[in-house]
């Protein structure tokens, strides 16, 4: 019984968590906004976001989310809001004193992947989908150990 219950749970969770959407479906080609919601439940999207976070050197200012020149992303204090839209706006349009605009420099789907990952840093993402530790120096609890706040 409990097994069955658990499997049902997996059934609900499994599919959207594990889907690996490589190509942007034409339906979303105009705006990916409707698609981002799944990102926070999709392991692949968030791990891509984590990779891009490193590749685009977000660490340069946000130091692994701990903060540095730029504000920390792991804290609960959000100067410009913590909704996916806010974060998307921060990335694409930039923010005063320092945060540059990346519009036109990173693809939209990548931006939404980053949004989902940034939110996972403060535990907003589904825990069974959030990234585990990276093969890098220990920066504190991995995203999938940070308590979920939604």
């Amino acid at each position, binding site marked *: 019984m409990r097994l069955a219950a658990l499997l049902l749970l997996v059934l609900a969770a499994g599919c959207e968590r594990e889907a690996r959407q*490589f*190509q942007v479906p034409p339906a979303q*080609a105009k705006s990916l906004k409707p698609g981002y919601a799944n990102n926070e439940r999709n392991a692949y999207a968030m791990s891509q976001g984590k990779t891009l976070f490193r590749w685009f050197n977000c660490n340069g200012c946000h130091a692994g989310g701990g903060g540095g020149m730029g504000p920390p992303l792991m804290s609960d204090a959000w100067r410009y809001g913590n909704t996916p839209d806010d974060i998307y706006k921060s990335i694409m349009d930039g923010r005063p004193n320092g945060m540059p605009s990346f519009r036109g420099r*990173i*693809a939209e789907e990548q931006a939404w992947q980053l949004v989902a990952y940034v939110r996972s840093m403060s535990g907003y993402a589904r825990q069974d989908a959030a990234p585990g530790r990276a*093969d890098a120096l220990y920066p504190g609890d991995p995203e999938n150990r940070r308590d979920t706040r939604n």
Partner: protein
Amino acid sequence: MLDAAGPQAARVLDLWWLTLAICLLVFFGVLLFCGLALWRAPKTQGPAAPDLASLSMAERGPRAAVAVAVAASTGLLFVLIIASFVADRALANMGPPDLKIELTGHRWWWEARYDASDPSKTFATANELHIPVGRTVLLELKADDVIHSFWVPNLAGKKDLIPGRTATLSLRADRAGTYRGQCAEFCGVQHAKMALLVTAMPQDEYDKWAAAQRESAPEPADKQQARGLELFVNGTCAMCHAIQGTPAHGRRAPDLTHLASRRTLAAGTLPNTRGHLAGWILDPQGIKPGVNMPANPMPPEDLDALLAYLEALK
């Protein structure tokens, strides 16, 4: 592997023929005796009474035969072991290298850095190695993400590229030509499309090639190319790609300084033609699903400009 173009591969090939011969001998030997047994032993249909003679008296003949057979196969086995040791030693010492290349495996492409005593002379290329014929080349193998394995059958055996470790492999090409290699350790979604080409050329040609590679990218020749460069630098491309001599310095994807001089795109996935390049820029995920390059939808005139510029990167 059966067409060796260098000493490493050649030694392995010799060992291969020896091993094959001995194994075939043993194989057919066993089949022969098995067949003889089937042929000479009397047949029966159904459960005939068992023959218990062997319990009362020892079977000298068969025992001797088995002993001889075991001894013979053991002997041949030792021949193989020794041959293998000898070949292994030979592979180990290739003499001092004339050229050092640092080869890094990424998901899913190869990054090659040509070292030189004078740092200004080092240069980077991707998914293609050019080496001078008859010179010993030392490869320093590194991995950026997961384990890959370097394998160019015509030139040498495999060597794994393991994160956190550095391996070295020295090889030599004795014949000019282009040899295909492919990642041989499963490395994820696009393991199948992670090839590289090794082109062996006479020393002088190689020197010409290397000199050309050291140059930074040519200035845009016309307005269209200038527009292309602008798109490249201010668009998504520069986030990951580098073109020497321009502000584009991304290290996450192949260095495109001399893109037009290469034979293939996307680690041996496509031949390097204008059409394929266009298709690749617009929809890489359709061609190589899971690759880290995003789709870059853009208006035709922009695409033409970008292509014009990239095509000029000889």
